[in-house]
């Protein structure tokens, strides 16, 4: 049975001045994920190793970490795929975020920016008696953005976030995209105005790190590009939206 060296970045703010790497040996067995390896370390070697996890099925987003320099969900990452030539796997917390302890980071700025885009639906005053009607095309356009699990992998991979925590960030812009294009939402114009601020859509440098990092293979960069176009054509877009909204409770015409 092969052994693998797992290097885990450790940092205890009560004791340490700066983070350091601790090494642990574990067996590489069939089907073991990086999260399994961390559990094994915690249960059998060092109970003080601290990390977040919950679902173990790549759906809660809490186990996002940086493995060999790449952000990912460790519950979804087979250990054998990440062993380097020296037989090591290096696990660090998500970069550019303050470390609370070991692999646990402070996500305050992540959630603050998320709140800033008002990620909830703002329905129109005259809500239809039955359900809103949306065409399959409209649903399809939004579906990708719906799959975001808010793990923070894209946010902490973004170089602009690295320099400024005031930037809205790819996660929140993806959600804003969802709301702006949702025909049921009543405030796309205001949303676009907010996104046009100094720390909004035009701050993105199109580096594509968010796409590489997303464990759900979403495309925040494309969403940001779309939002930029809409910000520039705000008036026309708002007019088209208002028209569409009037017909939300009508049957959808098939053309």
């Amino acid at each position, binding site marked *: 049975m092969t052994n693998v060296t797992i290097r885990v970045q450790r940092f205890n703010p009560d004791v340490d001045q700066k983070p350091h790497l601790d090494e642990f040996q574990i067996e590489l067995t069939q089907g073991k994920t990086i999260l399994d390896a961390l559990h094994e370390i915690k249960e059998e070697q060092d109970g003080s190793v601290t990390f977040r996890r919950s679902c173990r099925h790549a759906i809660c987003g809490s186990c996002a970490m940086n493995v060999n320099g790449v952000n990912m969900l460790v519950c979804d990452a087979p250990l054998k795929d990440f062993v380097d030539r020296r037989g090591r796997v290096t696990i660090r917390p998500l970069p550019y975020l303050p470390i609370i302890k070991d692999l646990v980071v402070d996500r305050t700025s992540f959630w603050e920016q998320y709140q800033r885009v008002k990620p909830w639906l703002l329905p129109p005053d005259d809500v239809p008696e039955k359900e809103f009607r949306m065409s399959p095309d409209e649903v399809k356009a939004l579906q990708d953005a719906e799959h975001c699990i808010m793990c923070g992998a894209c946010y902490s991979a973004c170089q*602009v976030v690295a*320099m*400024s*925590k*005031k*930037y809205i960030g790819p996660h929140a812009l993806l959600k804003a995209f969802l709301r702006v294009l949702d025909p049921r939402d009543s405030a796309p114009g205001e949303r676009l105005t907010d996104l*046009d*601020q*100094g720390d*909004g859509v*035009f*701050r993105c*440098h199109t580096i594509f790190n968010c796409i590489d990092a997303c464990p759900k293979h979403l495309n925040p960069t494309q969403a940001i590009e779309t939002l*930029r176009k809409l*910000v*520039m054509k705000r008036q026309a877009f708002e007019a088209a939206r208002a028209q569409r909204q009037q017909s939300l409770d009508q049957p959808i015409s098939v053309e």
Partner: protein
Amino acid sequence: MMRIFLLQRFSAIALLVFLTLHMIVLHYPPFHIDFDNVLERLENPVWKAIDIAFLFVVLVHALTGVYMVITDLDRLARYRGLITWISVAVGAAAFVYGTQTILAFQAP
């Protein structure tokens, strides 16, 4: 921010044209860098105008790019106004200096 973003994108498109022309005329066969050729070209006011426009577009593209990267930094965000004015001043000075050089270029 939107205006700066657009300035950078439009200047990038213009740069594509100018740089292609620049590379063809200065570096690729049958042309090559040759002082006599440069002299001959700059005798022509159209080439001088092209060079001045090239200089302008390069400055706009470079300075908007640097501005965007510098203002990314949280610590410098409150100096945004000052950085804008410094960029404009640097751009204007470089443009005047460069234009003078181009205009002064004459065959002996």
